[in-house]
């Protein structure tokens, strides 16, 4: 089983890289072969990934959220799954190149260094903790997808404004579609992040006897939550333009990335479970 898991660990980034190449062919060259194979390869890769995560849980007796490297794989899986749902919904495949690009990055980081921990905190089997981590990862996925669509929105927006009718103009769906997915993905991400934060505060109270800690991860997550809440709220209440929502989404995800990379690896005190 361990050998099979190791093989899957190599296979997954390879499949995602192939998928990314397929979407690149589709975006840059409108390749008919890529048009046919990309959706199929996406489904196959996501299925293998689900199998990998399931087998990892059974083999190593914990959900793969004990380390940043394990969590990155869950993150890659949830972003890919969310993209699969979006692609199926809108039938546009030209944005796959951008979304799968970040999935490749997450999975490469995971596969390169992931190892089953010899010991880990008993918290990992606590239902409340699992809900906290999984909702956080689902939230990050939604926010990542929202940031990519926000970025694409701005690229197309300025290309149209500046009368540039190049590849971005030709390949991307309408501004309205991308604005819709920026907003919806951010809303979904924010909802999950809110559940994760409420769960996190409850756990904090149980473990440390307080609802607050000056933990850098907690602080950056709260800042990101405030940015998203402000942006989405302003869009709903004051009719903020999709352009502003796109900027908000990118700003919020920059904070999330800082939280995921810098804070997780360097600064955190209590977000470690091995």
């Amino acid at each position, binding site marked *: 089983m361990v050998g099979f898991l190791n093989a899957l660990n190599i296979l997954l980034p390879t499949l995602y890289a192939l998928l990314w190449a397929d979407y690149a062919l589709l975006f840059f060259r*409108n390749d*008919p072969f890529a048009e046919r194979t990309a959706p199929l390869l996406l489904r196959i890769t996501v299925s293998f990934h689900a199998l990998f995560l399931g087998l990892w849980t059974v083999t190593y007796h914990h959900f793969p959220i004990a380390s940043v490297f394990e969590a990155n794989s869950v993150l890659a899986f949830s972003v890919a799954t969310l993209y699969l749902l979006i692609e199926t919904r809108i039938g546009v495949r030209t944005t796959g190149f951008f979304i799968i690009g970040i999935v490749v990055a997450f999975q490469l980081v995971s596969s390169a260094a992931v190892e089953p921990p010899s010991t880990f905190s008993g918290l990992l089997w606590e239902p409340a903790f699992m809900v906290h981590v999984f909702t956080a990862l689902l939230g990050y996925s939604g926010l990542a997808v929202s940031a990519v669509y926000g970025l694409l929105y701005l690229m*197309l927006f300025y290309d*149209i*404004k500046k*009368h540039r*009718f190049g590849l971005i*103009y*030709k390949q*991307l*769906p*309408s*501004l*309205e*579609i991308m604005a*819709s997915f920026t907003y919806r993905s951010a809303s979904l991400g924010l909802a999950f992040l809110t559940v994760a934060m409420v769960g996190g505060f409850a756990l904090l109270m149980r473990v440390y006897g307080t609802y607050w800690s000056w933990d850098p991860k907690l602080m950056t997550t709260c800042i990101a939550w405030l940015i998203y809440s402000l942006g989405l709220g302003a869009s709903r209440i004051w*009719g*903020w*333009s999709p*352009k502003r929502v796109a900027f908000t989404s990118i700003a919020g995800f920059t904070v999330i990335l800082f939280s995921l990379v810098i804070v997780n690896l360097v600064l955190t005190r209590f977000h470690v479970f091995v």
Partner: protein
Amino acid sequence: MDLIVVGLNHRTASVEVRERVAYDDREVQGVLARARSDEVLSEAILLSTCNRTEFYGLSNDNGSAEMYIRGLIAATKQVDLTAHPGYAYTLTRLESVRHLLRVAAGLDSLVLGESQILGQVRRAHELGVESGACGLTLNRLLQSAILVGRRVRNETSIGAGAVSVASAAAELAGKIFRDLSARSVLLIGVGEMGTLTARHMVERGVSKLTIANRTFHKAEELARELGGTALPLDRLESALAVADIAISSTAATTPIVSRKLMESIVGKRGGKPLVIIDIAVPRDFEASIGELDGVFLHDIDDMNLLVDRNLVKRRAEIPKAETIVEQEVEAFMAWRASLAAAPVIKKLRERVEELRSHEVERHRKRFCGNDREQVDLLTESLVNKILHPVMTRVREWGEEGHLGALRIDALYEAFDLERPDRDDEE
């Protein structure tokens, strides 16, 4: 039997001539019924669109077939093509096949890669089948043409991108709005290009059309024609405050909408985007309006740029489309050639089967019950094993042109097979 096409198109004849020899569906059926009863063509198809009228036929004598088709056009449309040799063209055999497949691919169209022609080829096929004039060969040819049309559109980008100002404007609006059918269009001025663009938007299904013009009765006339609402030009500000797409093509010599006016309009729109296609020369909207948030301002140069780029992209797809055409021409010609082998295969099998059953019958009394059945099975199996490689070779000869035809001929001689008449071959 050879294929022939006699026709004229946008390259060889002016619109005045083309409209005189255009056939509607009812006329096509009448002409095909007549061609069928006259028996000069054993099969016939008529493809008639606004840009071409082409008769495809199958006959024993292409010279007579050409004269017949020209006569048929003269009789039904009173246009003597022989008096104007430059109008019509005649292509035969391989060239006629290649021509139809290129037509279906959109390679011979006025607008390169346009997709309407495929539907028209399909309709010509249906009418041919309904009238009974489309037989085995033309049926297969039309199927090949439809297949080429589909393949070219699926496997190349020859039909992608707008190639007229009107469609470029719709394409641009489609890059901002998800669904044009939920959008309202404001046409400012009733200039030709603007009207054409508005008409295109209506065809794309926009929900509401408002026409504002200095001369109100002209706006009313056009509104009646396009199914919109007319508005005097002095109510332009309120119309711009609610429209999603504005198309402007007035004859005004100075801008009719200033930046200041547009700033106040944008303030009333609640952040809703406004697409302005200003195709007037001189322009109707001050250029700096394009800097305002939520306003996408594009002029005639932008539309021409879009059209030119799309045309260049379409032309770049021609080699891919031609390759598909050649693949299907080859497949069709191979199928045609293989038809020549079918009769000899049938005759040879009949002859050998006749010998086998005769011999089995002659010796039947020597065997009892079960053994007779076994002898039948054994001899049938033996015959099949002997004939199988022969049949394979004969099919290959059918695709080898003249040399293959000679070999097939030798087979008729060697086995003393009865030769089929020409109709059987088809």
